[in-house]
């Protein structure tokens, strides 16, 4: 079976190389931005690319449990890396917005309060902070598995707000952000209680 074969391979691949690989896209984008590869308006391009990368990884993180449950593919050991890398990209996305895009400190706070899509984006970021902070074995021990798992359901909210942030910022009726939003919604619906067989309830 394909799932077994994938599981056999992933058993041998540790998650740590993901952190190294994760550094490459932002470095590449920055290099492109400095050398004209992102077009004549590199600030917006860099900001959007990083935001989309972050959203893609949040979605990838949400795929891991359903993949195991419905397809028997076990990527659980990479979930922490995927989540932390998503957070890393969100931070970079935010930094580009603060430092390169808005630039004016007084306007940053005004924008967070006044512009709903920015409020929503900041909300997603805020939800991710406790998750990033507790993405380590010590935190799991301290909080206990049950509490830790409960806390990490904030990832659902973060993905939802991240998708909404994208939907709200485009002009006109555009399909792409709606596709992202749709994927997030499907992944969340798969987690609703009626989707679960009773004996699987304990698996979180």
């Amino acid at each position: 079976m394909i799932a077994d074969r994938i599981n056999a391979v992933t058993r041998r691949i540790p998650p740590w190389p993901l952190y190294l690989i994760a550094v490459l896209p932002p470095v590449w984008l920055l290099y492109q931005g400095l050398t004209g590869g992102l077009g004549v308006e590199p600030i917006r391009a860099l900001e959007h690319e990083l935001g989309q990368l972050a959203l893609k990884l949040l979605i990838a993180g949400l795929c891991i449990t359903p993949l195991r449950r419905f397809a028997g593919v076990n990527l659980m050991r990479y979930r922490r890396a995927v989540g932390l890398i998503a957070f890393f990209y969100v931070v970079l996305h935010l930094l580009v917005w603060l430092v390169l895009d808005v630039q004016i400190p007084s306007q940053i706070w005004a924008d967070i309060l006044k512009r709903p899509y920015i409020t929503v984006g900041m909300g997603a970021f805020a939800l991710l902070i406790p998750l990033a902070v507790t993405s380590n074995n010590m935190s799991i021990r301290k909080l206990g598995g049950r509490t830790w798992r409960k806390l990490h359901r904030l990832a659902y909210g973060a993905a939802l707000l991240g998708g909404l942030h994208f939907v709200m910022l485009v002009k006109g009726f555009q399909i792409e952000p709606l596709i992202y939003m749709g994927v997030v919604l499907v992944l969340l619906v798969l987690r609703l209680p009626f989707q679960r067989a009773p004996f699987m309830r304990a698996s979180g």
Partner: protein
Amino acid sequence: MAHRWTNTMTARDVTAERHWLNRRQIMAGLGGLAVAGLAGRAQAADGLTPNSWEEITNYNNYYEFGTGKEDPARYAGDLTIAPWSVQIDGMVDRPGAYGLDDILSKMTIEERIYRFRCVEAWSMVVPWSGFELADLLEMAGVQSGATHVAFETVLRPDEMPGVSRNVLEWPYVEGLRLDEAMHPLTIMATGIYGRDIPRQNGAPLRLVVPWKYGYKSIKSVVRVTLTDKEPPTSWNKANAREYGFYSNVNPAVDHPRWSQATEREIGGGLFAKRKPTLVFNGYDEVASLYEGMDLTVNH
């Protein structure tokens, strides 16, 4: 009657294209005060330096070819722009389909270096060439009851991959009040840097209204209709709260989703500084058109 408006930016600013970098380097080297007179002049010109051909033709909003900024440059190549004719109708004495060559033979082409401010808070300086819209309207003979002008962009699904998606309602339409349309700043552009206007910038004929947000400057115009009613406009139909009929550049009236107080000039790279946006995009001479109007309500 052409030449009713004089550039504050001169042709010298354009022909200096290949020298920009040199001049900037020289200015940096001069260090200011010793040559204050010269520095002042160069500084003023520097602030209004046109963007490069590369920048102007590779960062476009022309949703009929896709919503990405580089989509128009990539996908507009198939648009047939010759032969081209413009239907001028409604409240005019001489309605009809006017061939572009026929129109151009009667118009005086001049160069107009204008600031261009997009509603998305970025801006460029573009060295257009074109003729005054007033001259085109006079050619058709505006009837006395007309109060507004409606414009329509060509709609060719076979040549415009973006229209298969309903980002906006096609065809793209725009409109001006008649006095705005007759203002000498308002032109129909046919060229950039003295070359034919590229397809992604609205070939072969587009409106340019420099004191309004860019989307008012409708591209690839095939129809001009004189009317006595305020015509529907595409972005206003899509979202009336965000895009008003007037759409005058105004730093005091924010777009509901972002501030309009500042703008980023295209071409500054990754570390470009924002600069303050000017009322009417710096074209104060149009202020009298809106005397007594609340520009927040009529945004």
